[in-house]
């Protein structure tokens, strides 16, 4: 049991550390264009939609109604969290001040918040079987990289160091290992909750895509470009889940 728990924690930690890789391009580049950031947002959106597709499909195998109910809960959870954070914008953050600090804090807050859901997804995925667990962990680890890139792309041009970008990227994903353990224990003890949990993570992810990633991508890149990147990554993600 404790070995399992340690493994769940370790898997969650891997996904969190992967986020730090997003800062890597900034070790070589001074700036990354707004359009590149938009494309990475589109890729992250496609990966998250693909992951949600897998979660709903898996959840439906256990029961469609609880999965959908869980998804609605996930939507409400992220909405409530965003509402809570929207009223609490501070103006100083590390070396950053003013508007830059507010934007950084907001993106970090949103990213950290949705990491809770992803942590739940990792933990719950372990209840859905070994293959699903590895898959979802890998999927989340991979999609954390562009999220780290997005965080770094906001922080770096405002004067934060590459190390600071990497650290805050990892930080935004720390809820993943922390939430993965209770989610795993919870699911293991209450198997009936599994479809709710899978639906919850899917709902939270889908909402994040429509609330943050897609509108930001549309703001900086053409509809066609965003559409192509999202659908290609979505398709690749579905195949990846099937054949890996």
């Amino acid at each position, binding site marked *: 049991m404790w070995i399992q728990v340690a493994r769940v924690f370790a898997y969650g930690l891997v996904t969190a550390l992967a986020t730090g890789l997003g800062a890597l391009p900034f070790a070589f580049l001074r700036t990354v264009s707004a359009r590149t950031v938009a494309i990475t947002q589109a890729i992250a959106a496609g990966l998250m939609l693909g992951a949600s597709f897998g979660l709903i499909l898996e959840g439906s195998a256990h029961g469609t109604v609880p999965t959908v109910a869980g998804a609605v809960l996930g939507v409400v959870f992220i909405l409530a969290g965003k509402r809570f954070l929207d009223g609490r914008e501070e103006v100083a953050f590390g070396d950053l001040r003013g508007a830059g600090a507010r934007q950084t804090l907001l993106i970090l807050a949103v990213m950290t918040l949705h990491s809770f859901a992803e942590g739940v997804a990792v933990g719950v995925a372990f209840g859905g079987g070994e293959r699903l667990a590895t898959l979802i962990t890998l999927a989340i680890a991979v999609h954390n990289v562009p999220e780290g890139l997005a965080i770094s792309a906001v922080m770096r041009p405002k004067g934060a160091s590459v190390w600071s970008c990497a650290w805050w990227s990892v930080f935004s994903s720390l809820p993943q290992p922390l939430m993965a353990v209770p989610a795993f224990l919870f699911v293991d003890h209450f198997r009936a909750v599994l479809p709710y949990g899978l639906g919850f993570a899917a709902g939270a992810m889908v909402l994040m895509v429509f609330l943050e990633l897609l*509108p930001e991508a549309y703001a900086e890149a053409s509809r066609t470009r965003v559409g192509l990147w999202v659908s290609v990554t979505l398709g690749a993600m579905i*195949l990846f889940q*099937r054949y890996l």
Partner: protein
Amino acid sequence: MSGVIEGLVVETAEPVLTVLFYGAMAAGASALGALPFAFGDGPRKVWIGAAYALASGSMLGLGYVLMSEGLKAEAMVAVLGGGLGVGYTWWFQTYPGTDRLDTSPDHEVGRDTGYKTILQSTLHAASEGVAIGVAMVVNLSLGIFMALALAVHNVGEGMALTAVLRQRGMTVGESAGLCVVTNVTQPLFAIVAFALSPALGHFLPAALGFAAGSLVFLVLTELAPASYERASRTLVATLMSIAAAAVVFLEHVFV
């Protein structure tokens, strides 16, 4: 097949006529979108945005339903079909240039906005028709579900189209007529897809994937951007997710 859908079944001697009936019903529903404009100035901009968001979400839900059906048989074929659907939709947007159509309600409309909007709606409806036809091949209740869901979705789209047409001086009656006309491709393509898909044999999942890919790409390039231009992110995101969840739920309950 559950009782609810069974009550709605209109079966004819010729299965193609059944497809025509439901395809035509879905197309006809778009005229209802003109109805709110019969009273005063029509709905406010944010309502149009909300209609677009609901249309987007329901379409994503239908894409999920089609793709999960396709994956049951052969995942690789279904996903490759999805790629074809994306490619086809991309082509019909870039070739006539509707991909660069400015759909923002705050900008002044260009000279070519009118015909490009009509063209966009017509081609868009064709992809939806394919979805109805392919779903009819899988089984009748899935096909009817698809047609009913798209009928509801068409009301929202009809509302959005009427808003554009009214700006250009058309009457409510003319707008309603034009909404139906642009959707005529829906029953037509439903029939074509219904007639041709069985010939695909083992490649039927490709047709399902094709329909799913087209729908998802239409959401990403037409419906979702149009809703973000009219309503807040929070409203759009909430409506989209809830509509998608509702379609997945209803499909489970009724089909």
